[in-house]
């Protein structure tokens, strides 16, 4: 069923009885051409583009919980492409371009809102660094603007400009960045994939990967054995656990990242704003809640909950940046398991096993990458070679000495 204004109109007069479920709930077939492990944003996007762009329709997505139960529904919904390094920037820009046409493509409202992102700077060195990043973006054809203090004061009068230790001197603006409703992204891709014939199998945990003669022949699951020609892993925080079933050891460590939302307020924060003296980021959802977060907690964790000390630290950063936040009440907080890689950049690559493909290491930047990650992973699975914007995101880059380290933090996953 195609969604449109007309369909809403028709259903309104038909008592809204004609709406169909957005996707089927099929039993697994004995064999698929491609099985994707992980029914989150990236897995569903991969299935969608495999079917739509590359004509592979005998595809299944296997999810141990319900669709979108992991990080795609736990992030702070920010979409941007203001990266610096040549290995990253073309990829994230490709993603942003897919975002710009995503709703029409999926026939699904993901509430994508290009409200702009502003990264604040607090000293001369940081300004120079942002100029460098803006120039690097423009070298890749992505618009970036440097805002001075006076411009910023008119745009964001509520900021703490005269903080004694971290005065705000200006910011780097990417106007095309913004936010999207994260659950709708998962549902939109799920519905799109289902419409192209992909089987979405929920509540089905992969318990083993069967191999014969050095190639994968299928997966053992809680719903029995399912055979496949190609196996693709998009298991985010649990990537190491799934890859271990195939005897692989990955350059990843799982960490917990928390996010927070306040009570609903009238529109007050029009952009996505990030704090330069910490790692705080905030935006306002269309429902009115302020959505914000900061760093990971710092210790390895598979628990989808974090520590109160980190929550306190995040609130302190927020109030330092916007003093008015101290009056707002936090409604909820939650945590997600991040697959932190050794250089802070993702991996979309083949593995040492011929028909096993890997998509992981998204750290806490996976949401914005959802469309491009799906597209490039589907390209890799269907054609056997990397998409040209994802050529740097190789698994062997660590061994070869070509890490993509935006933060310059070295091989410390908890510092990226």
């Amino acid at each position: 069923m195609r969604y449109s204004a007309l369909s809403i109109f028709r259903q309104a007069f038909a008592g809204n009885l004609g709406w169909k479920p957005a996707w089927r709930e099929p039993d697994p077939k004995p064999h698929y051409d491609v099985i994707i492990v992980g029914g989150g944003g990236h897995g569903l996007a991969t299935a969608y583009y495999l079917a739509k762009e590359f004509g592979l329709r005998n595809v299944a997505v296997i999810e141990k919980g319900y669709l979108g139960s992991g990080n795609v529904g736990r992030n702070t919904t920010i979409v941007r492409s203001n990266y610096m390094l040549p290995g990253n920037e073309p990829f994230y820009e490709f993603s942003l371009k897919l975002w710009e046409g995503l709703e029409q493509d999926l026939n699904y409202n993901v509430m994508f809102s290009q409200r702009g992102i502003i990264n604040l700077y607090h000293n001369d060195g940081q300004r120079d660094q942002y100029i460098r990043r803006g120039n690097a973006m423009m070298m890749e054809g992505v618009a970036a603007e440097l805002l001075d203090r006076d411009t910023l004061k008119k745009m964001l009068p509520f900021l703490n400009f005269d903080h004694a230790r971290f005065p705000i001197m200006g910011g780097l603006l990417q106007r095309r960045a913004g936010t999207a409703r994260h659950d709708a992204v998962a549902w939109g891709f799920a519905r799109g994939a289902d419409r192209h014939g992909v089987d979405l199998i929920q509540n089905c945990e992969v318990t083993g990967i069967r191999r014969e003669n050095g190639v994968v022949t299928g997966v053992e699951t809680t719903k029995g054995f399912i055979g496949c020609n190609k196996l693709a892993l998009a298991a985010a925080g649990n990537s190491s656990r799934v890859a271990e079933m195939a005897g692989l050891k990955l350059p990843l460590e799982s960490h917990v990242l928390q996010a927070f939302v306040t009570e609903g307020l009238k529109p007050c924060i029009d952009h996505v704003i990030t704090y330069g003296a910490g790692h705080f980021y905030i935006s306002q959802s269309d429902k009115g809640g302020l959505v914000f977060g900061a760093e990971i907690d710092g210790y390895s964790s598979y628990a989808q909950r974090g520590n109160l000390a980190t929550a306190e630290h995040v609130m302190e950063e927020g109030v330092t940046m916007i003093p008015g936040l101290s009056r707002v009440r936090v409604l909820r907080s939650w945590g997600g398991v991040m697959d932190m890689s050794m250089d802070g950049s993702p991996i979309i690559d083949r593995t040492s096993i011929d028909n096993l493909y890997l998509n992981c290491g998204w750290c806490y930047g996976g949401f914005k990458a959802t469309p491009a990650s799906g597209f490039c992973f589907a390209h890799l699975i269907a054609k056997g070679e990397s998409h040209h914007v994802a050529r740097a995101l190789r698994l062997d880059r660590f061994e070869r000495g070509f890490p993509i380290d935006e933060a310059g933090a070295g091989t410390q996953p908890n510092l990226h």
Partner: protein
Amino acid sequence: MASLISCPHCGTRPKEEFAIRGDATPLRPSSMASDEAWHDYVHLRTNPRGRVREHWQHVAGCRRWLVVERDNLSHAVFSVTDAATEVDR
């Protein structure tokens, strides 16, 4: 995550006093070891779910390197020992 860590030298302290390095399982290879051995040590992690051993440093206390054994799913802490006593392991 448990909010308190029992440092063997300083007693029970808030976890914010500690800096976390990461997995204590990989052992540094010899300087003449192969590139593969170094790649394995520097980059690859088993990243287990459940019981883990990690290197923590008590930066706001005795500044000793410690081995914290804990569960990364339940966040329970089992033991904290000085890393120097781990050398023979």
